């Protein structure tokens, strides 16, 4: 009995020992597993922290993105939205969270999205296109949009407001149309005026000589009458030329404030179509740069410069457009050849520089690039009117145009825009021939006649001699300043033609003014109607003009000088 109890106790003890041993082993195993899990958790925690940081960066990036990004739940209610998305529609993020996306579209667009877009989105999982959103303030927002279905049934919407881009495209198309019209008009205007100018010169020569002949035939009635008929016929011929009424609508008279940055960006958008792939265009343009000029003329000039730059670079190179208040510090090259048109003044408000890395303008062609119908690339179909537009721009009176070029280095066009138009100088009164009274003739007055046409020049010289003046005729305007400065006896008056090679009458007048502000200047031209009255001119006379009227104009000019 005692033995049996002892055996039972021994058995129980052994079972307990085994249980204890199992528990010890289980505890060790549990501790090992715990350690393993703890280590795994530590690693996972590190990974989680990294992911949280990544998500924060990502979220911050999305919040700061300029493109709109939004998420909706399966019912179409916004559950996330970055400020750009809300701002695009003039809402705050808080105003739109929880709202249905349909709030951002008008009735017709919601219908289109429901009937056309969403069925495609459901079948393809994503949809890309354009939509017409509706802002809180009622404006239409043209959106470029990408919609992607989420597994939860919600949507990711990434969108960009392209209203401004669309507006610029429309503006570019409109400007392109006006530019083409302006190019055609410029060609017609320039050709017409060249013909009119030559005819007027011929008529002026005939008319002037007829007037002198009449004086000589004062006692021969029959011949006097015939010469008088010639004079009447020449006046009628001059009226016919005038009645052709060759005018350009986009002339330099229509000046208005221009957003230079917007205009250049639009111009470059137009030029993109002709830009070779190997050419890079770099721009450095401040956001706000306003000038006073003619939009179409400035665009024509910039586009023609850029187009010429593309052609000069043979498919590879760089065009840099820079707008600043000062010139580039970096010189184009050590030895550059230069040409300029317009009047250089102090303190331009903005300077536009367009620099290319092309072949440069050939030396023998540089002096002619602003001339009508002159082109360096006849084989490429150049009209010869592209850079002539720059002269038109300079004629507007508040732009100075410079060209620097170096062979195989490149060319730089610099357009300096001034605040004030030169001709609008209120300190000097504008004198009119018709409103001035007669004054005594002043025989012996020294008059410098400037006209490239020999027929007109000689005729005028004869006529002035008959009127007892002392005229000097010169056919090259480039020599005028030197003549004025070197004359032993100073000139009392300048009579100049308008259209001449090298320097036109308006530019010449400005240059004369800069050295002899007191010297009266009469413009005598077949295109006198194109010139704005200005304090620079004592009178603007239309060719042909009778000798008596010329005499009156001279006397008035000198008496007020």
């Amino acid at each position, binding site marked *: 009995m005692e033995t049996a109890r002892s055996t039972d106790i021994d058995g129980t003890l052994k079972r307990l020992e085994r*249980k204890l041993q199992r528990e*010890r082993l289980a505890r060790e195993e549990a501790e090992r597993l715990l350690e393993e899990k703890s280590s795994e958790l530590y690693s996972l925690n590190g990974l989680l922290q990294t992911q949280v940081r990544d998500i924060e960066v990502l979220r911050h990036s999305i919040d700061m993105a300029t493109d709109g990004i939004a998420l909706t739940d399966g019912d179409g209610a916004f559950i996330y939205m970055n400020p750009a998305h809300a701002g695009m529609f003039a809402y705050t993020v808080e105003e739109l969270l929880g709202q249905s996306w349909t709030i951002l579209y008008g009735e017709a667009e919601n219908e289109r999205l429901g009937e056309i877009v969403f069925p495609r989105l459901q079948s393809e999982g994503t949809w890309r296109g354009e939509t017409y959103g509706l802002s809180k303030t009622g404006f239409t927002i043209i959106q470029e949009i990408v919609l992607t279905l989420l597994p939860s049934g919600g949507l990711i919407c990434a969108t960009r407001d392209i209203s401004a881009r669309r507006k610029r495209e429309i503006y570019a198309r409109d400007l392109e149309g006006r530019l083409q019209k302006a190019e055609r008009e410029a060609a017609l205007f320039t050709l017409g005026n060249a013909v009119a100018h030559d005819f007027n010169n011929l008529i002026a020569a005939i008319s002037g000589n007829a007037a002198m002949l009449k004086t000589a035939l004062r006692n021969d009635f029959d011949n006097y009458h015939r010469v008088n008929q010639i004079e009447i016929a020449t006046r009628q011929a001059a009226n016919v030329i005038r009645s052709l009424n060759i005018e350009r609508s986009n002339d330099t008279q229509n000046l208005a404030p221009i957003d230079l940055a917007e205009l250049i960006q639009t111009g470059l958008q137009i030029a993109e179509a002709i830009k070779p792939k190997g050419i890079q265009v770099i721009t450095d343009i401040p956001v706000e740069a306003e000038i006073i000029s003619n939009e179409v003329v400035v665009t024509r000039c910039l586009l023609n410069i850029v187009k010429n730059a593309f052609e000069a670079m043979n498919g590879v190179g760089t065009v840099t457009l820079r707008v600043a208040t000062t010139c580039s510090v970096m010189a184009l090259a050590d030895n550059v050849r230069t040409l300029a048109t317009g009047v250089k003044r102090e303190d331009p408000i903005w300077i536009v520089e367009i620099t290319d890395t092309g072949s440069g303008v050939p030396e023998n062609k540089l002096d002619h690039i602003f001339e009508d119908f002159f082109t360096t690339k006849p084989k490429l179909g150049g009209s010869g009117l592209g850079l002539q537009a720059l002269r038109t721009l300079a004629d507007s009176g508040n732009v100075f145009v410079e060209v620097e070029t170096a062979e195989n280095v490149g060319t730089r066009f610099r357009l300096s825009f001034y605040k004030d138009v030169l001709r609008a100088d209120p300190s000097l009164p504008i004198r009119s021939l018709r409103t001035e009274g007669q004054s005594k003739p002043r025989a012996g007055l020294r008059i410098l006649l400037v006209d490239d046409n020999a027929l007109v020049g000689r005729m005028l010289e004869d006529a002035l001699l008959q009127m007892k003046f002392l005229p000097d005729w010169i056919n090259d305007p480039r020599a005028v300043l030197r003549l004025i400065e070197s004359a032993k006896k100073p000139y009392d008056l300048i009579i100049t033609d308008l259209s001449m090679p090298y320097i036109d009458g308006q530019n010449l007048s400005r240059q004369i003014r800069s050295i002899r502000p007191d010297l009266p200047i009469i413009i005598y031209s077949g295109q006198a109607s194109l010139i704005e009255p200005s304090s620079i001119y004592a009178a603007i006379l239309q060719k042909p003009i009778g000798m008596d009227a010329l005499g009156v104009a001279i006397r008035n000019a000198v008496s007020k000088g």
Partner: protein
Amino acid sequence: MKGIVFRSFESFVEANWSMDISDGMLSLPELRSGGAFTTVGYYPHTEFLTMAIYVAETTETPINLLVKRFGTALFHDLAGLHPEMVKSYASPIDLLAVIESVIHVDVRKLYTGTELPRFDVLSRDANTSIKLDYSSKRPFADLAEGLMWGCLDHYGVKETSSVMRDDVAADGTHSVFTVEVKHGDGAVDRH
């Protein structure tokens, strides 16, 4: 198979029979773990079957009945360990309805790589009945049934409820259960 099942089974055997039987079960040479189970470890389900067969034979209890009874006890142990998982649901039907969609999702989060049976809801009638499709790689339809009884017991409706079982596979890997909570004459199946 999760160690908690083994530890719970060890306690179940000791409580219902004896430490002697439990000791014999855990000393079986077929157990590669040596019978030293921890709640946080994982062990082959074959070791559970080996232990269950030993206990059934030693105590002369039908094995299916043994495993069902253990299932009921296991539910109580699990509910004690994770009360938050149970108290969120007002009725046994509510809880049974979310085994697959919520509870197993949470279990997988806690124990990565756990292989769990599936409990797909075939139909449900408010809080009075639910039809579940059970399927597993392991032959534990009896254990699943026991767990359902444990659930009904936990909510205090065991006596007035029924669990009907239709075996799709004879080996206990696939069955359809219909649980009805009755408020009258009691359950159909009293294990």
